């Protein structure tokens, strides 16, 4: 019965049919995009689990060094990401561009095998893998939004993010199982990772339908349409507030390290915190999306950042012990569930279909870059002035940015949710 939905989302009859479906039903295209992300995340998390081991032992490099490479590269690819978004918008080729991104990352898994222990090629492969991620994200989110009726964007993104997070949970388990069974067989891990990535690409290639927007393709390739998006007041607000919030956001690793310093549990448990956060995110992604569709996406987004502020406050409170750890992880998972997909849903609702990829790339890049800067600043302040000072500073910034987002959303309240 979904073929109808796929064919014409805008027809009134479909919308009526859609409304009669239970709230958690999303279009098959969204589920398939979620499966693509699931398999791709299994694949990529397998690699990120074993890569530090592989690099430290075979190349004798530190993760710090690679972290620097990765950080610098995130900045350098920002414009490229935007370009990929615009390319996807031209003629509505979201699926083709996303396919290029997923395909590149899949091939890179075999590239790891080919690079062997040689430093240069290995770094090149890792950078190409990141490029693939940069290319695919915005057109994929555009496809999700174009495959969903506007009033179900929240749930659609929730379903997608839940599948995505499930992949991130399963990947490390498979990697560790393989390493335990076949010690030292990193090549086997790379090949199995490639297989998962290939299935993800196959889902996208064969089962996902491309969504072309109704408008004719723009002939010229220029930055102007992407920048023109900034003239939409609510979208401009979202980009600016997103960047401000990104600046006040601390990288996961710092949150967990701060928790570990406060409560002084063995570092062995650090990976467990990542898992717990992912489980909370996985569990809350769909409900948060539903809540966003019902109450308004702006409200849930603001709520997500309030949850993050609660994490900061918890880290500043004198309380400690398991309550602090569990409470913080719960709030941190809720923060992810209420911001990541909801932000994309909110932005999608504001963007015209023909420039959706570029707009999503713009906002995604803005938040990511600001988050990178924020983490560097947080690390520096922690080192020089102490954890307490860093947390107070970032809490202040977060409250300010969240307040501005809230006020801005009220002021620009329009026909949109």
């Amino acid at each position, binding site marked *: 019965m979904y073929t109808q939905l796929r064919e014409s989302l805008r027809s009134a009859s479909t919308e009526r049919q859609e409304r009669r479906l239970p709230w958690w039903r999303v279009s098959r295209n969204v589920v398939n995009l979620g499966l693509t992300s699931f398999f791709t995340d299994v694949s990529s998390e397998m690699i*990120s*689990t074993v*890569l*530090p*081991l592989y*690099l*430290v*032992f075979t190349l*004798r490099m*530190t*993760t*710090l*060094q*690679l*972290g620097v490479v*990765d*950080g610098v590269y995130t900045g350098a690819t920002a414009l490229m990401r935007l370009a990929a978004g615009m390319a996807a918008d031209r003629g509505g080729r979201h699926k083709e561009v996303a396919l290029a991104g997923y395909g590149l990352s899949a091939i890179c898994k075999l590239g790891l095998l080919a690079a062997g*222990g*040689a430093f240069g090629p290995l770094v090149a492969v*890792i950078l190409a893998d990141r490029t693939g991620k940069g290319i695919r994200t915005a057109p994929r989110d555009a496809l999700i939004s174009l495959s969903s009726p506007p009033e179900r964007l929240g749930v659609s993104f929730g379903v997608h993010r839940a599948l995505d997070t499930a992949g991130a949970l399963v990947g*490390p388990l498979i990697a560790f199982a*393989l*390493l*335990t*069974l*076949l*010690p*030292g*067989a*990193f*090549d*086997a891990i790379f*090949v*199995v990772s490639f*297989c998962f990535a*290939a*299935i993800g690409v*196959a*889902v996208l290639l*064969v*089962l996902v339908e491309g969504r072309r927007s109704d408008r004719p393709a723009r002939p010229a390739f220029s930055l102007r349409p992407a920048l023109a998006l900034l003239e939409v007041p609510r979208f401009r607000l979202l980009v600016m507030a997103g960047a401000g919030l990104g600046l006040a956001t601390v*990288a*996961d*690793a*710092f949150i*967990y*390290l701060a928790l570990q*310093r406060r409560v002084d549990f*063995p*570092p*062995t448990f*650090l*990976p467990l915190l*990542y898992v717990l956060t992912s489980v909370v995110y996985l569990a809350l992604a769909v409900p948060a999306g539903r809540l966003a569709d019902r109450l308004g996406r702006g409200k849930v987004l603001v709520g997500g950042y309030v949850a993050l502020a609660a994490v900061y406050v918890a880290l500043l409170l004198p309380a400690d012990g398991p309550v602090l750890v569990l409470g913080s992880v719960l709030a941190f998972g809720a923060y992810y569930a209420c911001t990541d997909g909801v932000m994309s849903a909110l932005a999608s609702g504001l963007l015209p279909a023909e420039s959706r990829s570029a707009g999503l790339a713009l906002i995604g890049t803005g938040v990511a870059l600001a988050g990178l800067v924020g*983490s*560097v600043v947080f*690390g520096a302040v922690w*080192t020089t002035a*102490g*954890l307490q000072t860093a947390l107070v500073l970032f809490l202040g910034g977060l409250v300010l940015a969240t307040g501005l987002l809230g006020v801005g959303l009220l002021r620009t309240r329009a026909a949109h949710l």
Partner: protein
Amino acid sequence: MSRGALFAVICAAVIVLGVAYVGYAALRTRPATSSPASVAAAATDPQLRAILAQPHLVFLQPSGGDPTQNVVTVAPLQQGTTTRVETGLRCARAYFAAGHGICLGRTLTGAGFLFDDRFQPGRAFDQAGLPSRDRVSPDGRYASSTVFVTGDGYSTPGFSTRTQITDVQTGESVDLERFTVTRDGQRFSSPDFNFWGVTFADGSRFYATLGTAGHTYLIEGDRAARTARVLTDEIECPSLSADGTRVAYKRAIPGAQRQWRLHVLDLRTMADTALAETRSVDDQVEWLDASHIAYGLQDQGPPPTLDVNLWTVPADGSGAPAMYLAHASSPAVVRG
């Protein structure tokens, strides 16, 4: 062909590829852990006892892929010797002194164990992180271990090291981060303190590296008193000579990423000498005798491989590096 059939065909092909490759990997991979039989056999192996009766080298034979599969091996203390006997113990980094050994990295996530002079595994310990350095004190009383603690991904910040000193008899471990550190007589502390590369002197005294704010200080510490003081800067992975007068160490090359030159510092005069090895060395070196050091160096090819060889160079800056033992890393000199 329908979409579903096409998808099924692609998936089947991919799954066949994956299963076939894992099967191939399983066929060529050795068993995951030290086999109890080979470990027990080592205790009574006459060839091994013969080597142990003379000055010898305890080292690791690289496995070429998984560092936890490096084999603790023994050879006579003689350059280029072809005699070597595997003990059956496997780990990523090992050291041995005064009848006590430490093996770090029994698993990839950082567990380790102590072993005795019959190469039988003893007390096991958990230290989460990637195995990096380990040492046993000359009297066999203490063992130290350093691991890299990382986040779960290669792009996460917050990289650090953790170093502990364990009492071999009681198993009690102390983290160096709990020590009181002084610099120029003043209390010195910072949240970014990282300790690595312990080398033991006499009693409970030791030297190590303290990394903070871009500096890599040489510290002199006392395990019993839980104190340490900063001696000088730009010293990593010190290794104390048998007479306790000099440390051989690696010094970061300014401006270069992860490139180190080997130096020797005279602790009495603080005179510093660069050694004749010009290649970058990332290792905690070992003193072969009063005037030579040994260190592991990855086979640089061409083409580079995952194999590691032991090299030696004079400790006074003269001469030239020479291969000491092929296919070996993590050296420990034992002179009865």
